[in-house]
């Protein structure tokens, strides 16, 4: 039986892990390769690097990180962050990434996803989606920034939200700052049609809160598409992983800080999930 996947995510900037990984016993907790090896030993099912390197000149560093990781860790590796061109995808795959996740570039040019899927295959084309609720629960006074619509907004109005309707979720870019006017459910279906092999779904409302995944969002997308969905954003406990996989119907769960700070090991989370009837790899 296919098992649910647990995927630790490492934010990498200029070749170093940020968001303070605090493993006991690591020589260098800022070294992504060492962290990857640690997660490999702990039984992670996959690994994700999110490259948040800002400067263009330093973008090549992630390729070295991927190369060194692929020499030591024999598990599936997804790399995302700043992937803009087919060459970016090719370089990452050549360095040893198994999947590449595309976020902002997909919003501005959906055909990039189609081109990547055609050239490299759907199996390595992940679309990362940053979503926010249209109705801000319990965040009164939250000022909605101005919408920055994608260039194709006029051509595909059917993918946009209805401004009158305050239900559902909207795609944001730039780390959750810029609303795009794109409806998340329709967008994920469109990405699937264009060849995305997997959706990495992050709730920007929950990201960093430790309040748990946005379960309604996770379930809405999991039910809307036929490709696997990875839930992301908001994990603070193993119960949150359980909710994402059961109520949220996600195929995989991504988490960062609960693993980095040694709060829970991946083994502990798997033991808990298994005790609640979720099939995980032992």
């Amino acid at each position, binding site marked *: *039986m*296919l*098992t*649910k*996947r647990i995927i630790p995510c490492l934010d990498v900037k200029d070749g170093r892990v940020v968001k303070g990984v605090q493993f006991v016993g690591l020589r260098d907790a800022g070294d992504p390769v060492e962290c990857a090896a640690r997660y*490999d030993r702990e039984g992670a*099912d996959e690994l994700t690097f999110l490259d948040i390197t800002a400067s263009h000149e330093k973008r090549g560093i992630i390729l070295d990180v991927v*190369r060194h990781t*692929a*020499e030591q860790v*024999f*598990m*599936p590796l997804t790399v995302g962050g700043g992937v803009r061109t087919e060459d970016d995808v090719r370089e990452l*795959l*050549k*360095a*040893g*990434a*198994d999947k590449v996740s595309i976020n902002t570039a997909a919003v501005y040019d959906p055909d990039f996803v189609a081109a990547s899927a055609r050239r*490299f*295959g*759907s*199996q*390595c084309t992940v679309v990362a989606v940053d979503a926010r609720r249209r109705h801000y629960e319990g965040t009164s006074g939250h000022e909605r920034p101005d919408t920055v619509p994608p260039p194709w907004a006029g051509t595909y109005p059917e993918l946009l939200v209805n401004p009158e309707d305050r239900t559902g979720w909207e795609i944001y870019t730039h780390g959750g700052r810029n609303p795009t006017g794109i409806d998340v459910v329709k967008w994920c279906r469109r990405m699937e049609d264009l060849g995305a*092999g*997997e959706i990495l779904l992050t709730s920007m409302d929950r990201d960093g809160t430790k309040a748990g995944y946005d379960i309604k969002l996770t379930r809405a997308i999991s*039910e809307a598409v*036929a*490709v*696997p*969905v990875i839930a992301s954003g908001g994990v603070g406990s193993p119960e949150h992983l359980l909710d994402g996989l059961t109520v949220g*119907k996600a*195929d*995989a769960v991504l988490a960062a800080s609960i693993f980095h700070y040694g709060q829970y090991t991946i083994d502990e989370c798997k033991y808990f999930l298994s005790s609640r009837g979720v099939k995980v*790899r*032992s």
Partner: protein
Amino acid sequence: MIAIVDYGVGNLRSVAKALERVGAEVRVTSDADEISSADGVVLPGVGAFGKCMDNLRAAGLEDCVRSVAGSDTPFFGICVGMQILFDESEEFGPVKGLGILPGKVKRFARRTPDMKIPHMGWNQLQISERGRAPQLRGIPDGAFVYFVHSYYVDADASDLAASTTNYGRSFISSVWSDNIFATQFHPEKSQKLGLKLLANFAVMAGEPVP
């Protein structure tokens, strides 16, 4: 020396590094002579079936692969590198494969809304009753390995199966026929057990694996 056939598809680096890790001498090559004279040959493959076939032909390696597969040289196909050994695939087709093994490649049908395609992640091997392929030595029944694919081999002669796996239906997760062994899953991404499998293969190719 084990030759990894380089025909412009996918990431050969992981396969090469995994074999090196278990102690094998590896050459990633598109040179037909080098492939033909190797002690073991690995045929990887990702992406579309038709594209893999086209690339193999464009690289001038179809006959070479065919003759190695028909020889005594230990041969290891991975993912689409397993699929193209069969007669044909319905992916963007029908598209003809190498026809070295009898069987067709079909798309998974979604049986339930929870059944996602691609079949992506860790699933279990049921080792076939026919006897354990030497490549699977030390791999327990029920072992977890990593899959990512939307098409599967529906072999006419399912007695070729070295293992089967369940995903909505039972499909062939590895085949074994004389010198040929091939997996639908990715041993190079299957952590310890995947490395064990590659080590078994390397030993068969005469590599001094510790």
